[in-house]
C-alpha cells in the first residue's frame, strides 16, 4: 500500500514494479534458423559459424569449427562446386560470399601451420567399426567415427588412400601436395589404415560382418558404364575414366588429333581439357544444358560451372543439348560422328525423357570418340549385395535395405551427389548413425527440420553493398601440366568476405534488439543466453511490439502467439 508523499513525488525506477509483460499477445523468441549455405552444403558445413570466427580473425578456431563437419577443407575448398554459394542469400543482394575461398584458405593455413584435429582420446575399450574404401566417403566416415570415439579401421584396395581424388582428379584442380597433406593428417589421426586390402580378394563382406557390428562401404564407382551407338562401338574405344587415370598417374596420353567427348560430368570436362591442353581439337557433346540460373539441376551438366568455363577458355568446343546420332566408321575406326539436337524434357510424371529433333543432324570429323557417360559400382566382392543393380539403394542415413549394420555412402549409393562434398557428408551422417548404433542409442524418428531462412526474412537495411573478392586464375595460355589454375584469396580478402556474411538465421550480436527495444525488455548477456543469442528477453516487461524481430538483421527473432 503506497503512502502519499508531499507533492506526490516518486522514487527512482519504481516502475519496475509494474510488469508490462501482461500487455503482450505475441512473444519474441530467439530462434536459430538454418542458413541457405548450411542447408545447401552436401557435406553439412555451416559456413556462418566459421565465417564469424574468420571475421574475428581467429583462424584456428574457424578451422576447428570447419573440420567438425568436413575433415578435408583444403580439398573441398578447391574441387567442390560449392552449392553453398549458389544458395547464399547475399547472391540476391550483391554477390554470394566466396565461401569456397574461405574454406580453402583455412585448409591451407592448417596444412601450413600443422594444426591437428581436435579429437578426444580413444578409450581402451572403445567400440570398433570398419570402413571399406578410402575415397572421400570412407575417409570422412572413418574420421567422424574417430571423432566420436570409435576405433575405425579403414580398408583400401589400392596401396594409397584417396580414391577418385587421387585417381581421377587432375593436379591443376587439386595439387598433389594438398591432397597428400590432408589425407596424411587424417590417417594419422588414430585411424587403423589397411592398404592393399580388397573385398573379394583379401577379405569378404561376410568376414567383416562377423568381426564388426557395423560395416561402412564406400567403394565409389570404378567401372565405366558400357557405351555404344545403335549397338556399335569403335574397336579402339577408350573410356574417359581409364585415359584420365593413366594421365593422372603417369602423365601419358595416346596420340589423338581430334576427338568427341561424350558426357557432361566432371570426368568428361577434365578429359576434354587434358586433350585440349595436349593440342587436340576437342568437342564435348552432352544431352545436358549449360548450368545457369533458369536451368534445373537435373537438366544441367554435372560438371562445376567454373570448370566448364575454364574448359571453354582452354579451347574445348561445347555441344550442349546434343547427342551422338550415328558413328561414322571407316572399317572399325571412327572418322566422324553425326550429332543431333536433343533436349531433356520433364514429363507429367516428373521424370525426364530425352527427345531428339529430326532434321538437326550435323557431322563432326574426328578420329576419336571418348565416352564419359558415368561409372557404376565395380561389383567385385559385393556381388551378392548388389544383385542385378549397379548402385546400392540406401535410406537417408545410408543403411542398406535388409542388411542390418551395413552402411553405404558416397558415389556407390543410389542417387548420390556425385561430388566430393556429397561423399564427405554421407560419411559423416553414416558415422553418426553407426556411433549411435554401437552405443545402442539410435532412434529412428525423423528430426523436424527448421525452415531455411530466405532473403525476405532478413532486414537488409543494416547491410551495405560490398563487392565479392574474385580469386586470380592462371591465364589459359599458361595452363600446362598440373599447374593449379585457381589462385585462392589473400588473408585480408578472406576476412573481408567473412565480414560480408549476412549470418542468416544466426545471431551476430549486433545489439539491434538491445538498442531498439522501447521497453528495456532486452538484456545483454553472453553467459546467460542459452539460445545461442547474446541477449535475454525479460518477459516481465516485453510488450510484444515486435520491433526487435522486425529490425533483427539476420532473422534470428521469431514472433509467436502467446495463446499457442
Amino acid at each position: 500500500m503506497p503512502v502519499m508523499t508531499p507533492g506526490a513525488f516518486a522514487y527512482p525506477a519504481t516502475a519496475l514494479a509494474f510488469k508490462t509483460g501482461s500487455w503482450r499477445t505475441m512473444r519474441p523468441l530467439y530462434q536459430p534458423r538454418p542458413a541457405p549455405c548450411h542447408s545447401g552444403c552436401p557435406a553439412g558445413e555451416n559456413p556462418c559459424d566459421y565465417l564469424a570466427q574468420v571475421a574475428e580473425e581467429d583462424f584456428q578456431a574457424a578451422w576447428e569449427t570447419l573440420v567438425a563437419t568436413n575433415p578435408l577443407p583444403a580439398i573441398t575448398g578447391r574441387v567442390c562446386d560449392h552449392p553453398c554459394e549458389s544458395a547464399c542469400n547475399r547472391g540476391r543482394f550483391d554477390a554470394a560470399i566466396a565461401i569456397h575461398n574461405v574454406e580453402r584458405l583455412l585448409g591451407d593455413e592448417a596444412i601450413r601451420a600443422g594444426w591437428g584435429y581436435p579429437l578426444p582420446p580413444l578409450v581402451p575399450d572403445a567400440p570398433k567399426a570398419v570402413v571399406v574404401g578410402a575415397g572421400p566417403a570412407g575417409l570422412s566416415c572413418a574420421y567422424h567415427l574417430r571423432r566420436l570415439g570409435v576405433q575405425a579401421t579403414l580398408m583400401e584396395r589400392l596401396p594409397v588412400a584417396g580414391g577418385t581424388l587421387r585417381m581421377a582428379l587432375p593436379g591443376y584442380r587439386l595439387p598433389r601436395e594438398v591432397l597428400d597433406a590432408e589425407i596424411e593428417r587424417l590417417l594419422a589421426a588414430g585411424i587403423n589404415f589397411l592398404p592393399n586390402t580388397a573385398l573379394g580378394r583379401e577379405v569378404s563382406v561376410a568376414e567383416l560382418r562377423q568381426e564388426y557390428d557395423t560395416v561402412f562401404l564406400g567403394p565409389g564407382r570404378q567401372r565405366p558404364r558400357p557405351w555404344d551407338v545403335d549397338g556399335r562401338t569403335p574397336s579402339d574405344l577408350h573410356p574417359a575414366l581409364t585415359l584420365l587415370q593413366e594421365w593422372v598417374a603417369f602423365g601419358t596420353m595416346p596420340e589423338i588429333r581430334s576427338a568427341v567427348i561424350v558426357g557432361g560430368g566432371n570426368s568428361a570436362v577434365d578429359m576434354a581439357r587434358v586433350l585440349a591442353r595436349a593440342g587436340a581439337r576437342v568437342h564435348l557433346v552432352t544431352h545436358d544444358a549449360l548450368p545457369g540460373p533458369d536451368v534445373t539441376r537435373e537438366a544441367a551438366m554435372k560438371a562445376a560451372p567454373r570448370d566448364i568455363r575454364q574448359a571453354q577458355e582452354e579451347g574445348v568446343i561445347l555441344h550442349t543439348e546434343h547427342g551422338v546420332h550415328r558413328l561414322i566408321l571407316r572399317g572399325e575406326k571412327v572418322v566422324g560422328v553425326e550429332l543431333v539436337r536433343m533436349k531433356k524434357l520433364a514429363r507429367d510424371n516428373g521424370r525426364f525423357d530425352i527427345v531428339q529433333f529430326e532434321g538437326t543432324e550435323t557431322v563432326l570429323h574426328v578420329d576419336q570418340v571418348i565416352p564419359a557417360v558415368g561409372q557404376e559400382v565395380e561389383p567385385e566382392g559385393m556381388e551378392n549385395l548388389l544383385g542385378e543393380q549397379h548402385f546400392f539403394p540406401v535410406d537417408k542415413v545410408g543403411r542398406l535395405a535388409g542388411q542390418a549394420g551395413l552402411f553405404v555412402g558416397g558415389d556407390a549409393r543410389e542417387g548420390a551427389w556425385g561430388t566430393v562434398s556429397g561423399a564427405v557428408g554421407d560419411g559423416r551422417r553414416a558415422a553418426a548413425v553407426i556411433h549411435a548404433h554401437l552405443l545402442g542409442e539410435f532412434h529412428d524418428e525423423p528430426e523436424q527440420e527448421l525452415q531455411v531462412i530466405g532473403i525476405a526474412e532478413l532486414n537488409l537495411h543494416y547491410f551495405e553493398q560490398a563487392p565479392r573478392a574474385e580469386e586470380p586464375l592462371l591465364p589459359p595460355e599458361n595452363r600446362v601440366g598440373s599447374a593449379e589454375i585457381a589462385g585462392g584469396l589473400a588473408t585480408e580478402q578472406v576476412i573481408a568476405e567473412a565480414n560480408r556474411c549476412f549470418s542468416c538465421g544466426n545471431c551476430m550480436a549486433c545489439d539491434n534488439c538491445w538498442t531498439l527495444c522501447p521497453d528495456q525488455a532486452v538484456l545483454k548477456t553472453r553467459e546467460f543466453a542459452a539460445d545461442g543469442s547474446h541477449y535475454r528477453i525479460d518477459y516481465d516487461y516485453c510488450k510484444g511490439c515486435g520491433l526487435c524481430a522486425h529490425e533483427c538483421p539476420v532473422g534470428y527473432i521469431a514472433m509467436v502467439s502467446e495463446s499457442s
Partner: protein
Amino acid sequence: MTPQTLHDLRMAQPRFQGLEAGHRACQGCGQALAARLTLEESGPDVVVANATGCLEVFTTAWPDSAWRVPWLHSLFANTGAVAAGMEAALKMQGRDIKVLAFAGDGGTFDIGFQALSGMLERGHNVLFICYDNEAYMNTGVQRSSSTPHAAATTTSPAGVARMGKRHLKKDILSIIAAHHIPYAATASVAYPADLRKKVRRGIEVEGPSFLQIHSPCPLGWGHGSELSIEVARLAVQSGMFPLIELEQGALVGAMPIRQIRPVADYLKLQGRFKHLFADDALAREELAHLQALADQNIEDYALKAETADPLDTEGVDTVRRGGLRST
C-alpha cells in the same frame, strides 16, 4: 535463470538505463526509445525538465517512476523556463550538472514555444530535446503545427472536402537557428548511433542546444508497432525528415542519403496518409505535393549522397558483429 538473477542482469547492463522498464508507453513507442537513447548517452549527471505529454504521463504514474535521473514535470507550456530556472540555480551553486529539457512537438512548436525561445535567447546552458511525433498524441492525436501537410488527425480529418491537414509542418529548426545558439540538430530513432552522437554534442556545448528527434507514434501514425523504426527510417531516406546539424544558426552538416526512396514508400505504411492513395485527383495532387516537399528538402540540404559517406543513412547504422556501430 531465476527472475532474481534476471533482475541482477538488468542492474548490470553495460549502459545507463536512465529510463527503466515498467513505463506505460504504447507498444513500439518511438518517444520511449528516444528518451532512453538520450539518457544512455547523457549518463546520470543531469537533471530533466519534462513537459506535459505522453512521455511524462507514461513514465510517472504515482507511485511509480521509470526515471533514474532527477526529473521534474511542471506544466505543458513552461518547460523551457523551468529548465532555465534549474540551470540558473545549478550555476549559482557551482555544480556541473547539465540540464535536459524534454518536450513533445506540442510543448516545443506550439504552447511551449515562447518559454523555449526565451530560454534560448537568454543563453541558458540547457539541451532542449523535442520528441517530435507530429501531433498531440497525449490527448488523442490532434493536429499540431508539426503535423505534416495532408496528414489526417482527429482535428484535421480526411474527408470528401479535405485531404487532412491543410497547412505545412512548421520549420521549427529554422526558427531555432534564428536564435543563433551554439548547436541545433535533427535526429531520428531509426539512427541511434547518429542520435547518440548529437546528444553528446548538445551536452558538450556551453549554452543552449536543441535536438529535434523524429519519434514515430504507432497509434497516431497508424502503423504496426513493429514498424516504428522502419517508418522513421523511410522518413529520412525519402527526404521528408532531413538529419541536419546547425552551429550558431549555420548549417554545418546533413546526413546524405545513398538511395533516395519515394515519399510514397514512407506514406503508404501509415494510416494517417491512407487517403492519399485513393483513386482521386485531389489525392494524387497532395501525394505529388508531399513528394515535392521532400524533393525540396533534398535540394535545400544537398541530401543526395555523391559517394559512400561513412555516415550516410545506410552506413551510419550498418550492423557490426558484437554491436559495434560506426559513429
